[in-house]
């Protein structure tokens, strides 16, 4: 039972990273119908960046703040320089295009930071043991980040006028214009949000999972699997899906074989796409704005 709970804790913390990335993916997908393969690379970029800043002597919070802002800007820059340059960008083309962006980002990280994985110092806090289950304080930080940042984005999109208009801009550009958002601005805002959320995932997870130049792809793809569980539109379903994915992966690693862990997400992806493309969402029509 202790083992089961231990695996659940590990799964939840891993799932919180997937959840943040899924939130970022949905943020751009709902606005721009772009599937951003580079979403996970935002995380590694922020992780590696903050590690360098800490190594350079900056205090941890300052380093993290700079990394978050930089990656947010980088995401906007990518939107302006790459995404916005393609006319009639279909989702399919966006996958190939952002695959290029992801590859480029990875190569740049490899050249700057080298092939070794690096670790950000753990955030302040004490690890605790509850009934034999060891919980790292960092894991609480990760879940906390999900609640604050992921929840924040969710509320922004679902509750605020701006957020609703943003979501509408993909299907109803006119409605968005009424609130005063041009499609271009909507796209920039969405990518800024995606950058920030991805970067958050990167810095909170770096102390446990390390940041390595090539790590973002798989992270991003798993975030995508979670987003598909949310039908690519529902933040809530995607977050639940991400946490579930993390937990299932953890059980597979613990009870089946650790090597198969990474395959779980893709089995789920294919099965969900074939059987229920609308994801976990109960009433798909009701969620689509």
């Amino acid at each position, binding site marked *: 039972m202790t083992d089961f709970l231990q695996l659940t804790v590990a799964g939840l913390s891993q799932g919180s990273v997937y959840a943040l990335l899924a939130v970022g993916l949905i943020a751009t997908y709902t606005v721009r119908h772009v*599937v951003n393969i580079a979403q996970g690379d935002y995380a590694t970029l922020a992780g590696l960046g903050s590690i360098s800043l800490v190594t350079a002597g900056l205090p941890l919070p300052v380093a993290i703040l700079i990394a978050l802002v930089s990656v947010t800007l980088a995401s906007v820059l990518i939107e302006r320089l790459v995404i916005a340059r393609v006319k009639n960008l279909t989702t399919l083309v966006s996958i*190939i*295009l952002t695959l290029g962006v992801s590859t*480029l980002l990875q190569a740049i990280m490899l050249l700057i930071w*080298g092939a070794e994985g690096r670790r950000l110092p753990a955030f302040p806090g004490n690890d605790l043991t509850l009934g034999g289950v060891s919980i790292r304080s960092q894991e609480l930080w990760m879940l906390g980040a999900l609640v604050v940042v992921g929840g924040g984005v969710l509320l922004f999109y679902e509750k605020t006028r701006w957020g609703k208009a943003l979501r509408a801009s993909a299907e109803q550009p006119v409605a968005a214009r009424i609130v005063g958002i041009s499609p271009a601005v909507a796209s920039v805002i969405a990518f800024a949000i995606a950058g920030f959320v991805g970067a958050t995932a990167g810095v909170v997870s770096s102390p446990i999972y390390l940041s390595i130049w090539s790590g973002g792809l798989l992270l991003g793809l798993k975030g995508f699997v979670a987003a598909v569980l949310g039908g690519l539109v529902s933040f809530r379903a995607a977050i639940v899906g991400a946490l579930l994915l993390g937990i299932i992966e953890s059980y597979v690693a613990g009870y089946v074989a650790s090597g198969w862990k990474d395959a779980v997400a893709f089995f789920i992806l294919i099965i969900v796409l074939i059987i229920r493309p609308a994801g976990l969402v109960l009433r798909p029509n009701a969620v689509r704005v």
Partner: protein
Amino acid sequence: MSLLNNAAIRSKTGFWPNNRGTIIGVAVLAVIIAIVPFTASSSMMNIAVFSMIFALPAIGLSLLMGLAGQVSLGQAAFFAIGAYTHAILLQKFEQPALVAAVGGVVAAMLAALLVGLPMLRLRGHYLALATLGLGFIVMIAVREWDFTGRTTGIYGYGRPEVFGIPIDNNGLFFWFVAPFVLIGLVLALNLTRSRAGRALSSVNDSELAAESLGVNTYALRVKVFTLSAGFAGLGGVFYAYQVQIVSPQVAEFHVSVELLLMVVIGGLGSVWGAIAGAFIVELLSEGLRELIPAIIPGATGEVQLIGYGLVLILVIILLPGGLYQVVKTAWAAIRRRMGKRADAASRPVPDGTADAGAGDVPTRAFGGLPGESAASAGTEGLDDTTDAAASAPRIPTVSTPIAAGEPILEVTGLTKRYGGVVAVDDVSFTVPAGRIMGLIGPNGAGKTTCFNMITGAIAPTSGTVRFLGNEIQGRKPHVGAEAGLTRTFQNLQVFSSTDVVGNVYMGRYRKGRAGILRGMLGLQGREQYTHEEVARDILDSMRLGDVAGLAAGDLPFGRQRMMEVCRALAAEPALLLLDEPMAGLSGHERELLATLLRALRDAGLTIVLVEHDVAQVMALADTVAVLDDGVLIAHGDPESVRNDPAVIVAYLGTDAEEAEAELKELEEQS
């Protein structure tokens, strides 16, 4: 008269003119292949060898992307399955080399068929992502499975001799693999020009229209997917042979990305481009691995990725047609220059408008998802000036499977609900063979919905549609089409990537038989020529013969509509469904069409038309059905329908007097 038009009219006869490009191209490539091992440096030779190996999966992927309009991010999976199967058959089962090689290809194709059956129901980006997932699963499976040697893989099987010759150096291996690449190239080129290839490229223009002509899109996609995997498997076999170890790295995602890059660089869907792309990517990879560490000291690892990323982004932004587009544009410029000298009168074809049935079919993948592309409206400069008045056109062949008067189409209780809204409510009627039935009703009455349910474009919530005694409701449009039910569209669905005759040729799809295999082997020339001749005859009879070679999208709107009718007639249907065929036609086009429809009816064809122009319907139809708010409110001969009070109220408004007045007007018109 444009060059293209000349070419289209002149060609299509005989083997040599039709295959000249392929033959000369392959001959040039063969000469290069023969020479390279004597002149290339050893490192260049290594690049050449691996570009040949990877050209095979790249050709497969380019077929998938160009023909089927599907992007696979998991091509490496099939490459790996081919390689592993070959290695395992050699090493663990000690099979002869030939058996192992064939086994590798077959295993890759079988795997593709198995996963393709469910996965190819997905569309666009969903399929791309599912294939990506598949790639990861295969990679993890071979890494974790004892049978595939886990992380180390399968090794120690050596290189079997070929006809007693040990292939123990790069030069010989190059000569060994190159003929397979050439054969693969020819097969792929043949396929793009075949019946199946042209059908798939039509699917990319308008899936609905292609399906309505009898194209079983799904089956063709599964076949191309399987074929594409076969190419990948063959590449994998050669890889396993050359490298003598197969480890999970061959299944890794970056291999799929490399293959994708090859196809994107080469020009999506261009088979020649895939080979050029393979060479360029291998060269880029080796070059960057040398170059980057020289520029940035201490740079190690997969530094070539920086080039991959940059090239991928730049090609998509600046050069979506890839190398193929560059060559095409350059060649057009050369032609223009030469053409001016040779013939001052000839004018260049606007770039990228027509690419009819040529060896390379540009994909729709980058233009929009299949079915998204609508026909462009009429363009300037091609005014319909040929005046043939309303003299009766020649009648294309029609099929009359049952006697006139027998029920050919029976609709019973047809209902469609969208959520709480009932679009069509319990509609039943029977259409006797050899008659024209008009389906009318106010806007939003459910005419087109009804039409779409009959043709299979949408599935009814309940009710049955019997065509020639067989229930076809809820089946894909190609099911009805194969049995002889063909339609036109209210919103035109022309195949804009081909010319007018190419569109009408697609109407002949149902009459052809050649499948993918015959297409690849180039064994369907005669059949294809026959059908093209028929297509031309139909165009001539409809006074469209003069524009046969033009890009379909360049026709004025009215002529596009006529072309769609020609396309539908080319299928020699037993039942023709026309969705607002008169809309957008000029007065004399309408007359021409009306005359034609009557003549066709007299020849035994059954016609159902949805029409806005009530007067036209009343004049043309033998029976008329009226829909209002999804309910069939009247059905009978025009006279009785015209006098039906329910129709008058529903169709013309609640004011009886006003309706009366309108009705008078109608009567006067007819």
